[in-house]
């Protein structure tokens, strides 16, 4: 048995590519999963801009003052704050992907809270990117905004409850710095009851009767106002701004992702397998002696794989439209985006196929390469460090998944970057991978 063990180890040692994959692949996947699990929604990097002037940092509610920091500190516990000087800098950081979003507190924030009874105050959340990022922003930032709102509402409640207690039971009330003594509804009712008990004249009884009824009703129901105050949950509204494109529903973005993933697997597996088959069957040497040029052979594989994957993904998109409402007026763009994506994936497929000696190896290689690329393309900006995000962007840009997803997403959801820009990117990748495959074919006859 030990000799068999030794033999297998020797074979493994000589299979450098397989050995490299066995080591590198789990590390790459583990790293990706690590990023996904450790650096996601916990503390997204958010640019923060407080436009409220220094001297207006408090919210005045009657005699009470609330510092705006009461509100913002709740937010800062939830985000990795990146301080910015002005709105332009905030927008630039969102555009570049350095931060996931920007949170802007407008200059009139405290003024509106103080004056308008919580109906006009708002904060602005600015974000960019695809529906996944938009959803990520909404689910993390907005939930933290809701927490901050709740904290503010609690302070408002406490203040409002104090006022109601004074109106009900009587006491001192501060109105614009002036201390007023309030009798209170309960004492007012007691006083009226006493007057009525002293048997006043019929005319007096007639005049005081409605006042006595009001006081009775007010005492009985004023406590319910406190319950109503508890329903004040969102004193501050959130204004969402998308820098480019439009807000994309998560379900239609999921359609774009699902279709692109299907397109990728069908195309890459088929193209790589078709080319590797020529080597496995030894037919390349026969074809290469002038029957078919290398370029024509690659073009045939690319066109066939792309056509099959295109048909599958378009059928899938049409099928999905039965369940998820899609804009059929953009069907022409679906076709163009899917065609561009399928050609680029097929070019990647033949490049992979040119590295493998047999169909099974090509399929395995295609699968191992495709899966992490899809993962990488879906990592949101701000979810990882800026440097790592830049690296991910570069890697995603040199493989077809990201531009294909952008093209399909733009075709389905009218998102940014647009279809044409993504198609130009895909065209460059078709040429690059086609050239790589052409060079790889040289290995076929060695």
């Amino acid at each position: 048995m030990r000799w068999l063990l030794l033999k297998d180890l020797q074979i493994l040692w000589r299979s450098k590519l397989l050995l490299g994959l066995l080591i590198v692949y789990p590390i790459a996947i583990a790293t990706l999963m690590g990023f996904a699990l450790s650096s996601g929604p916990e503390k997204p990097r958010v640019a923060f801009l407080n436009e409220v002037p220094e001297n207006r940092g408090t919210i005045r509610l009657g005699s009470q003052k609330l510092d705006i920091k009461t509100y913002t500190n709740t937010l800062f516990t939830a985000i990795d704050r990146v301080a910015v000087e002005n709105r332009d800098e905030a927008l630039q950081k969102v555009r570049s992907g350095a931060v996931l979003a920007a949170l802007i507190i407008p200059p009139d924030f405290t003024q509106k809270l103080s004056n308008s009874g919580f109906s006009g105050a708002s904060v602005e959340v600015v974000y960019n990117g695809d529906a996944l990022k938009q959803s990520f922003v909404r689910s993390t930032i907005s939930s933290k905004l809701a927490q901050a709102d709740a904290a503010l509402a609690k302070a408002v409640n406490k203040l409002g409850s104090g006022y109601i207690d004074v109106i009900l039971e009587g006491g001192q009330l501060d109105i614009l710095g002036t201390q007023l003594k309030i009798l209170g509804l309960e004492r007012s009712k007691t006083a009226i009851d006493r007057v009525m008990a002293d048997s006043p004249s019929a005319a007096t009884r007639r005049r005081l009767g409605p006042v006595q009824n009001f006081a009775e009703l007010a005492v009985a129901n004023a406590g319910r106002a406190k319950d109503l105050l508890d329903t004040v949950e969102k004193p501050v509204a959130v204004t969402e701004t998308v820098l480019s494109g439009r807000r994309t529903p998560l379900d239609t973005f999921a359609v774009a992702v699902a279709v692109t993933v299907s397109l990728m697997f069908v195309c890459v597996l088929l193209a790589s397998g078709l080319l590797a088959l020529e080597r496995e069957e030894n037919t390349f040497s026969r074809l290469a002696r002038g029957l078919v040029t290398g370029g024509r052979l690659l073009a045939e594989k690319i066109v066939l794989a792309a056509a099959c994957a295109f048909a599958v993904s378009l059928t899938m998109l049409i099928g999905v439209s039965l369940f998820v409402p899609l804009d059929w007026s953009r069907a022409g763009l679906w076709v163009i985006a899917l065609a561009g994506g399928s050609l680029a994936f097929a070019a990647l497929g033949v490049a992979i196929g040119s590295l493998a000696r047999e169909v099974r190896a090509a399929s395995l290689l295609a699968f191992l390469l495709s899966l992490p690329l899809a993962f990488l393309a879906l990592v949101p900006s701000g979810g990882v460090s800026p440097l790592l995000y830049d690296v991910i962007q570069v890697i995603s840009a040199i493989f077809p998944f990201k531009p294909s997803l952008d093209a399909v997403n733009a075709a389905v959801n009218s998102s940014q970057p647009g279809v044409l820009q993504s198609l130009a990117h895909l065209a460059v990748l078709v040429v690059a991978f086609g050239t790589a495959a052409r060079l790889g074919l040289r290995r076929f006859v060695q």
Partner: protein
Amino acid sequence: MGRDTAEAVASEAPSLIVRGLRKCFGERVAVRDVSFEVKRGELLAIIGPNGAGKTTLLSMLAGIRVPDDGTVRQQGPNADRRIGWVPQQTAVYSKLTVAQNLRLFARLEKVEDLDAVVERMLEQTALSERADDELGSLSGGNRQRVNIAVGLLADPPVLLLDEPSGALDPRQRQRLWSFITSLTDRGTSVLFATHDISEAERHAHRVLVLADGELLFNGSPAELHAVSGEAPGVDMEQAFVAFLATKGH
């Protein structure tokens, strides 16, 4: 009888002229300035030890590999046609039927009367009854027959075979050589690479001995025997080994 006829035909002008052919893989010289000619209807064996450069030489003649130096030129009737190539390992599609394989390669070779040529090749390889069988279901010998048939589809003036009888049983080998002899009788020049020295002695008009990419001998089997220094009754394989030894291989 076929051999005599072929020798008569082979007296004509060369159909293939090879001059100074050279191929290197990195530092290693696989084929070193090889020059020879093949006459019309001649059956030429390329023999040599493993790694001598036989397959590399044939693949350059077939146009699969580009030589680093030297020329390969066809001349005579049908010189514009491609050189026929039968690789050592079967180079056909195992998921296609015999007829589909022949039809595909006939189309790629741009043969004129497609159906007639496919029918003829099925008859010549005695595979008419298996025409609709998937190639993967055939025996190794039958696959090799289809492999050879594909190389002959365009009726090439020069045919190259790399270890053609390796996968065949004695009966199939005999049928193969009979078939090849019929080709040379019709004027086709045939070059084949082989390890089997006795096969070269039995069938070839002329042998080329390659060792480490160098052409050591170009002559008839009888001449090779003579230059080996071995006694006339000695086995050809022994004479070949002795010859290599005299050349330092």
